[in-house]
């Protein structure tokens, strides 16, 4: 869609120093998104909201996504000596992509009735450096949704103003939607436990038997 490239060029022209990247999307929906760097997040958001042509005044959806550390395999052309002749051979190279958390914003315009423009912001890692600027001062609809992302994923939004847990109770410790979350295994009664439920129940029983 032309909309994504146009938005990218306008934003990069208007806000000095911002770096945007178009994230591809291979599925038939064709909704490509813009990766915004975290320092210019609020400035980009303000521009998107107040720009005369875009007028994206409605932030519809704020989502958190967890990308744990993964191995990415790529086919690389490498020059190798095969049977005495130097040839270019395709090899599979595996690289480790570090883990990060991500916040995805879907923006629409109620005034001009167009959209969606999708922007993403990524944290640096999943442990300590998980801060992102909050876009709540720009769009108030992000208030509850960013609280939910903090609650379930652990991304700390700076500048939010009221960042507490929203769905879990306040004293809860972990972040349930992360991929490495281990749920507590206090089953009351399982009539026919099998597979993983059986394993967990056995572990729990042995823990209870031993102090």
């Amino acid at each position, binding site marked *: 869609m032309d909309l994504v490239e146009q938005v990218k060029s306008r934003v990069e022209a208007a806000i000095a120093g911002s770096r945007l990247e178009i994230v591809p999307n291979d599925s038939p929906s064709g909704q490509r998104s813009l990766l915004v760097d975290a320092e210019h997040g609020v400035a980009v958001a303000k521009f998107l909201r107040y720009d005369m042509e875009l007028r994206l005044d409605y932030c519809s959806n704020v989502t958190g996504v967890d990308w744990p550390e993964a191995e990415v395999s790529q086919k690389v052309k490498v020059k190798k000596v095969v049977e005495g002749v130097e040839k270019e051979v395709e090899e599979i190279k595996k690289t480790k992509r570090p883990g990060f958390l991500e916040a995805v914003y879907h923006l629409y315009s109620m005034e001009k009735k167009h959209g969606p423009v999708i922007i993403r912001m990524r944290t640096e890692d999943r442990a300590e450096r998980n801060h992102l600027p909050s876009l709540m001062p720009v769009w108030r609809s992000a208030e509850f949704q960013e609280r939910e992302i903090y609650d379930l994923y652990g991304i700390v939004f700076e500048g939010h103003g009221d960042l507490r847990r929203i769905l879990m109770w306040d004293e809860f410790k972990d972040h349930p939607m992360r991929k490495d979350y281990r749920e507590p295994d206090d089953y009351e*009664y399982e*009539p*026919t436990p*099998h597979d993983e439920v059986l394993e967990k129940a056995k572990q729990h029983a042995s823990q209870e038997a031993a102090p």
Partner: protein
Amino acid sequence: MLGEGIIKGMAETARNFVGSYHDPERMTTVQYPEDKIAAKENARNFPFLVFDGDDAMKGLRCVACQICEKECPPKCIYIIKDTVKKPDYMGKMQVQAKRFDIDISVCMSCQICVEVCPFEAIKMDTEFELSSTDRFGGLLLDKHQLAKSNEYYQKIHPTEATEVDTRLAEEKAKAEAKAKADAEAKAKVAAAKLASPSQSPPPKA
């Protein structure tokens, strides 16, 4: 006049009140459990296993393929395959289930198991008065409690059951016709061999 709107509203209420004594449209209460509303034909409550014929265990259509177990969203079905095979409605020996449990305290009546079953073995029942006083295992139905006859299925879902029966009868007829054609072809080849033994092909080098 202040209060006119309220009085108009009360006239409406009075009309409903008086009407409920003689107008059937306004008498909407059914005194359950003395009177029951008849279930709609497509209503679904909990699954049951269909068996053909008289013997529940011998006539079960289920072949323990475990597709329903995999597709069930809350994973309430538990199947253990048996080592002994039994003949199915077409006469072929099929695997059967040694244990087929459905935990109806977990089942959410979504009907996905019915949709994915390739053998028309599991269908939805309309009975919902299944409460039990036993908290642990009282709502766990096993193979014997789940097996209900094809006549019962015809009674509760007539259109669906007739459609299933016609399809199964057609498949059986086709299979029988194919078996007969195969047998005839074999008989012809055997007869041809007997008639001219010199025409047998030479052995391969």
